């Protein structure tokens, strides 16, 4: 894949409807998959797929955003934009993973959490926040893979994990380039510029230390879906094996896993710090990250 693809070209690839989606990864990588439905409170969200199955010799829980491959499917699955009940189904399955010691695999592919009247009424914000809280201390190895669009809090709500992997042409950002352009340039057609400015690509995110591995796409995923899926499977397996080795000794290992997960997020951020503001109120100061 040429290095020269622009951020915007990658945005378009990430959104290509022919790109393999969560259900394709599940079909190829998870054996004996049993889809589990519902949040036990309000509904079953077709934009969020979840269930249990076997991944290369281990029982796992899988959650993922569910996009369609055509308009009809996308209408059924709300374009992969979960409502609160989707996040609550995911939460239930995360707790299931923890209870039974099943690693959690999350496939991230969403434009974002649904903005809507019903979603606000039923607490979209708190549904996302509760997942962030649960994922921070889930006592089981967790791996998230951004396979397409990683859109804002709606992506983050299932992707706080020990390892975050990204396909080369996937994107991850705090807002869509269109929304960013509309806010900053007052012009949504400036989305390509916004995409570049926001640094949304896998290479960017890896460079920032937010993503742990970029999974190459020698050709775009939708042109070689089977090989892409296997390559993603190999990467998940490698990371899961490392994490499983950490927790061999049970609780002490899990404590260490959680401590490492905390430090991973603890470190993220860039700022400038005056070490002693009384002495150098306006002096130049070095740029910092916590690590």
């Amino acid at each position, binding site marked *: 894949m040429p290095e020269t693809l622009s951020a915007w070209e990658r945005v378009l690839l990430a959104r290509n409807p022919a790109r393999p989606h969560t259900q394709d990864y599940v079909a190829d990588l998870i054996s*004996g998959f*049993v*889809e*589990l*439905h*519902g*949040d*036990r*409170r*309000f*509904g*079953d969200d077709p934009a969020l797929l979840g269930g*249990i*199955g*076997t991944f290369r010799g*281990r*029982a796992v829980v899988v959650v993922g955003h569910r996009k369609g491959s055509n308009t009809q499917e996308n209408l059924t699955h709300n374009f992969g934009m979960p409502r609160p*009940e989707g996040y609550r*189904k995911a939460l239930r399955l995360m707790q*299931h993973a923890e*209870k*039974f*010691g*099943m*690693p959690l695999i999350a496939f991230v592919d969403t434009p974002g959490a649904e903005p809507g009247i019903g979603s606000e009424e039923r607490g979209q914000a708190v549904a996302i926040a509760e997942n962030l809280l649960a994922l921070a201390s889930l*006592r*089981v*190895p967790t791996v998230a893979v951004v396979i397409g669009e990683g859109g804002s809090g709606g992506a983050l709500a299932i992707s706080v994990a020990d390892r975050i992997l990204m396909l080369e042409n996937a994107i991850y950002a705090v807002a869509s380039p269109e929304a960013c352009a509309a806010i900053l340039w007052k012009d949504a057609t400036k989305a390509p510029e916004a995409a570049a400015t926001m640094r949304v690509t896998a290479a960017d995110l890896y460079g920032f230390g937010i993503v742990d591995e970029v999974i190459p796409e020698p050709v775009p995923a939708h042109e070689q879906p089977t090989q892409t899926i296997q390559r993603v499977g190999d990467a998940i397996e490698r990371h899961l094996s490392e994490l*499983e*080795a950490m*927790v*061999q*000794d*049970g*609780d002490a*290992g*899990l404590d260490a896993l959680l401590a490492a997960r905390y430090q991973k997020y603890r470190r993220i951020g860039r700022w400038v710090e005056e070490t002693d503001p009384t002495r150098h109120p306006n002096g130049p100061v070095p740029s910092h990250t916590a690590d």
Partner: protein
Amino acid sequence: MRELFRRQPRFTVEPQGEDSPVVPDDLWVKCPRCRELTYSREFERELRVCPRCNHHFRLTAAQRIAMLTDPGSFVEWDAGLEAADPLGFAAGGESYPDKVATAKRKSGAREALITGSARLDGRPFALAVAEFGFMGASMGSVFGEKLVRAIERAIEQELPLVTVSSSGGARMQESPFSLMQMAKTTAALARLGEARLPHIAVLVDPCYGGVTASYTTVADVIIAEPGAMIGFAGPRVIEQITRQKLPEGFQTAEFLLEHGMIDLIAPRRTLRAKIATLLDHYALARRQPARRTAGAAASAQEAPDA
């Protein structure tokens, strides 16, 4: 597996009650929903599901056990428990012991829940099956005690638990004792959960009241049969009280799936295989490194009374 359904003589009891298939000459079964006739051998082969309209006829506990276990593998637990009459209950000239005697005669069962250990294609598990033909599988003291003993044995023997539930509601004749079985059975499941053993609940038509509002709906996986009616309050009660017309399909398994209350709907002919797959996943997980080795849950298990 379909053949099993006829092979275990101890557990081949004819279905009873309002849903009994009408069998004109012992050779044809008439479906109460689509009115089509099915040759009785085909009917049995289809596990008593109408091949025309997919109507799932009610089964006896014995038929359920035959359907979900390897032949000869089911070992019943606590068969000797029977209802007492703690309230000295009588209504309309009939005492509770009279009612129990009638239920025993009609259903061929000694109480509304049958429990035991069994194997499913070799996989060991604990099984509890409600008998709707016995006083509408209302949850009295015996139901609760047998279920709790089964859960405690499952913990002791590290067995996964499968329950097949159906219930018309409370056992009025044991009023406060019946109510408390909701708490008692659910408390036992809390311990099963602490032991990290799975509970797979199968809800079959009809499933109402205390059974729905206790041990069944906190299961790790909830499976329902197609078309099964499942709810807390009965539809007639709701209609009477709210004076509203109930929505189309209200309280069906399909309605519950849409409203997020159950994990999946399994047509009867897929149920056994679905449970087998789930048991495999949980058995595999039990050997995985991420299994907590100790902690608050485990320490509660080791409390003085355990």
